[in-house]
């Protein structure tokens, strides 16, 4: 595996790791790792360093919805322009072009059910090219970005063994 691949493997799980520690884990030169990180950022491969938050454990209300959107693709530009019109809304967190029964998957974060509903009916459905939408609300997150949210790791091994 290349250093690049290994760096990505590690920081995907732990973006707070510093360059020194990263170089220790990889057994690579610190300067080389720092340069590689910079390159990865410049090339847009590393797009950000986010924090995973389980909002349901806070007092702050968040409602997440997945919306399946069917659209009419436009000659010459396909889905790109309609996708852009949708992703520009700040409440939209993700937009994916999908294979299968619908075209765009829009993931939305709102403060309330009402807010999400009004976004779908007032903004999304009224776009010219949108044929139909189906909105699914997320009730509970068990696992997100590879992390299990509902259980903590517990070490149940014998404390000393040969």
């Amino acid at each position, binding site marked *: *595996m290349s250093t690049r691949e*290994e760096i990505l*493997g*590690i920081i995907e799980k732990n973006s707070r790791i510093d360059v020194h*520690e990263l170089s*220790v*884990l*990889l*057994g690579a030169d610190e300067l080389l790792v720092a340069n590689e990180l910079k390159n990865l950022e410049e090339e847009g491969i590393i797009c950000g360093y986010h924090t995973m938050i389980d909002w349901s454990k806070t007092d702050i209300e968040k409602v997440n919805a997945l919306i399946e959107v069917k659209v009419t693709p436009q000659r010459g530009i396909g889905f790109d322009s309609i996708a852009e019109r949708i992703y520009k809304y700040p409440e939209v967190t993700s937009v994916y072009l999908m294979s299968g029964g619908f075209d765009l998957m829009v993931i939305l974060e709102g403060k309330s059910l009402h807010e999400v509903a009004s976004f779908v009916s007032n903004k999304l459905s009224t776009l010219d090219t949108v044929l139909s939408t189906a909105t699914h609300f997320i009730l509970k997150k068990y696992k997100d970005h590879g992390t299990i949210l509902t259980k903590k*790791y517990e*070490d149940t*091994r*014998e*404390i*000393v*063994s*040969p």
Partner: protein
Amino acid sequence: MRNPIGKKVVDIKPSGIRKFFDIVLETEGAISLGVGEPDFDTPWHIRDEGIYSLEKGRTFYTSNSGLKELRTEISNYIHRTQGVSYDPIKEVFVTVGGSEAIDLALRAMIDEGDEVLIPQPSYVSYEPCAILADAVPVIIELKEENQFRLTAQEVLEKVTDKTKILVLPFPNNPTGAIMEKEDLEEIAKVVIEKDLYVISDEIYGELTYSGKHVSIVSLPGMKERTILINGFSKAYAMTGWRLGYACGPQAIMEQMVKIHQFAIMCAPTTSQYAAVEALRNGDDDVLMMKEQYNHRRRFLLSEFERIGLPCFEPYGAFYVFPCIKKFGMSSDEFCTRLLKEEKLAVVPGTAFGDCGEGYIRVSYAYSLENLKAAMERLERFISKL
């Protein structure tokens, strides 16, 4: 009343780890780096296959040697990793962990008084199993200056007319030492010249961090003289499933299976079904875990260097074996004080043979966060000495 206990058993020293275990249990809030098993759960698809076999009602004995499909997968695995072919029916059989295979191999091959060469520091069971098989254990003391590898010279120094078996415990617990192809070639020469047999315990084979693990069975003339022992515990994080295997010449396997059928009957059926899945679809899991271990290995070595704890670089298993001689304490004293003063548990090197004196075994089968917290304690302890 008559003394109910047999003399041979009484004379065997209890494991040094056991004694330490009891002290650790009494210490509240202790962090342990004393565990000899992976911290990962068994990969889900492997567990799922075990559960599925139970649902389907696969709850009966298997044949004494184990499921044919499992033995076939074991044979395929050795062929693809070492280029050596074993007949899955006659030369492979499934045991209750690698440790059963060690016991059986010794019992099947030993006549009273035969000598068994056991390199130490090494896993705790070779010497007692040899004694229980009426063999005379002859210890070879491995040296740090050789990176705890076994040399041909060391074997030659201990070989007598009575020597029958050489135990080859690499990659090694507790030192993390490995044997590379050139090292093994030297050993193989002596083995053939002195007409010895080898019990090669390769349970940590997959956890080799400098290239690929090389088994002595891949060297010319060695398949005929070697019992290859491996299992699922370390590579696939399956310690609790208790599943290992032995491969070797048919004549020896037959006798080992004879003891196995009377003492054990067969290895656990659920585990065998899970193990088939492990060998068929588990390569990526092994790679992922190995990568994590390797990160931690490098982290510990770098931390030891920073806090001034000398340590040779080990390339196998999930242990490092730093030297504590410069602190003027015995391993036992060092570990006991470290536990009392900083609540950090590591295992004294002497638990793996007298020549482990002056060393401690530190396991990195722990998360990086855990290792970091432990290194803070170790640093504080050392700075006070």
